[in-house]
């Protein structure tokens, strides 16, 4: 009887649980495990204008309660996506969002234009925060002017829900949140990965081919929660929180800090059914704690 629906600035999610880009493929890898139409939304992998091979192997290092990745936006490009993947995934019964990445503003615009024409894609997540590519990526997300420039440019061509994903590798994330809101974002998601590094003391070499990579998983949760809370106080648009969510309790914490919805990333690798369990868990929590709507949790932390 709990109402799990979330209003994401006009876009309705059946519940607040989404998957994070780059950690859920196109959803297909998870279909053996559970019915993905039960999710509030799926964020497909980082999609760029052109085909990208990504970075060289090794791309992964395990860290204390976390992992570093340096995938580097491997994907076949947005045209391939529109032609070959979109037809397959459009009827999955949940919102399939596209995570749009690029190295130049021009690329972001063109990619967004292509996705804009895909009827069943309700929105994009503008990734201005990828730490794993040489040009662009995170650079856009680490200063207000560049963040505003790319968001404004995409806003002009993209007519549906425009979510903007922030980088945590900044001094003042609230400022950048406010700037992208001003530039036309419909919602703000955070956090992308924190720039980190791992060294093998035996070989005395970096573990990743790219030396540095993006840190995700429970290790970053305290930072992510803090940033969600800071941004929630600085903007009016809804926030989609993520960073280290492993279970229902974590998801609730993000909502209490101010997130309207949450994304689960790394946890999918360890328990491919985790998102389904969180949907169930949120309903239970609301029931047990007398919340008739899950949306009552948003920003409900008592300071």
């Amino acid at each position: 009887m709990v109402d799990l629906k979330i209003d994401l600035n006009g876009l309705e999610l059946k519940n607040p649980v989404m998957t994070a880009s780059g950690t859920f493929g196109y959803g297909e890898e998870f279909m053996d495990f559970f019915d993905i139409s039960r999710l509030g939304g799926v964020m497909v992998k980082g999609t760029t204008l052109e085909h990208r091979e990504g970075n060289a192997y090794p791309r992964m290092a395990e860290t204390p309660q976390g992992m570093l990745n340096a995938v580097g936006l491997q994907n076949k490009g947005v045209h391939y996506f529109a032609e070959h993947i979109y037809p397959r995934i459009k009827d999955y019964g949940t919102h399939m969002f596209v995570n749009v990445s690029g190295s130049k503003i021009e690329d972001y615009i063109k990619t967004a234009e292509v996705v804009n024409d895909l009827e069943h894609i309700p929105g994009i997540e503008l990734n201005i925060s990828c730490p794993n590519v040489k040009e662009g990526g995170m650079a856009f997300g680490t200063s207000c002017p560049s963040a505003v420039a790319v968001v404004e440019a995409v806003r002009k061509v993209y007519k549906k829900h425009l979510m903007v994903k922030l980088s945590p590798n900044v001094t003042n994330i609230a400022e950048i949140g406010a700037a992208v809101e001003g530039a036309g974002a419909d919602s703000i998601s955070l956090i992308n990965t924190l720039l980190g590094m791992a060294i093998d003391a035996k070989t005395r070499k970096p573990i990743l081919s790219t030396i540095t990579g993006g840190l995700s998983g429970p290790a970053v949760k305290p930072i992510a929660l803090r940033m969600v809370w800071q941004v929630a106080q600085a903007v009016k648009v809804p926030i989609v929180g993520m960073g280290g969510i492993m279970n229902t309790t974590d998801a609730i914490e993000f909502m209490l800090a101010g997130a309207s919805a949450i994304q689960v990333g790394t946890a999918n690798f360890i328990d491919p059914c985790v998102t389904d369990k969180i949907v169930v868990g949120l309903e239970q929590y609301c029931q047990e704690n007398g919340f008739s709507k899950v949306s009552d949790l948003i920003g409900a932390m008592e300071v």
Partner: protein
Amino acid sequence: MKKYIDDFKVIKNERLNYEYVILTLQHPGQMPEMMPGQFVEVRVDNGPNTFLRRPISIHDVDMEANTMKLLVQEIGDGTRLMGQLKEGDNCNLVYPLGNSFSLPEKKRVLLVGGGCGIAPLLYMGRHLVANGIEPQFLLGARTQEGLIAMDAFSELGQLYTTTEDGSHGTKGFVIHHPVMRTQSPEIDQIYTCGPEAMMKVVAKYAKNHGIKCEVSLENHMACGFGACLCCVADTLDGHKCTCTDGPVFDSTYLKW
């Protein structure tokens, strides 16, 4: 093949030596079919330093007992914790993952393994026998100590060994074993799994002799089922996931 996530029960932990154990895991119900070359992703519980699952090859399968065996080499925190699993413990698996070895077109095959890379070769050997093919195994190690589970292999076919110090079988690396010289004209297909350096030498040898060669890679993985793109191998078609397009690749397909 459909993937599952299940709690298996550890019904046996057989310690082979200071660094190898064989775990026998029982499925709670009817175990689904699994192919040789495929692997499982083991959730390592109680490990403050282990966050991700650990990929381990399917070493053997008994469909009647609903059990599978894992051969684990203890090299770090995760595998050491696996080595400590006791009868009755739960072991959560995501399985079966990856592609599998192909059946050879002709009948003479050689399976070349080293280290924990011998793990998938046993199940493959069994599969070959079931398909009327007589496998020959060539297993290498540094010393006699590293040669394990020999009995199981020799039950299935001819077994050759090499050790670097000559303490068992031919002295040297697998590539130095006489079977490589004497039998190569008759070998139709090689399957190899083990240290990358070994596999590369074997693959090169196969190429030079015009023998089809399948290698099984052990790239580091975060998910094991195609979701993260961390495990890529460099192939003629660019980056391919070791966990879904592999772990078994035709050696000529790899940019080695």
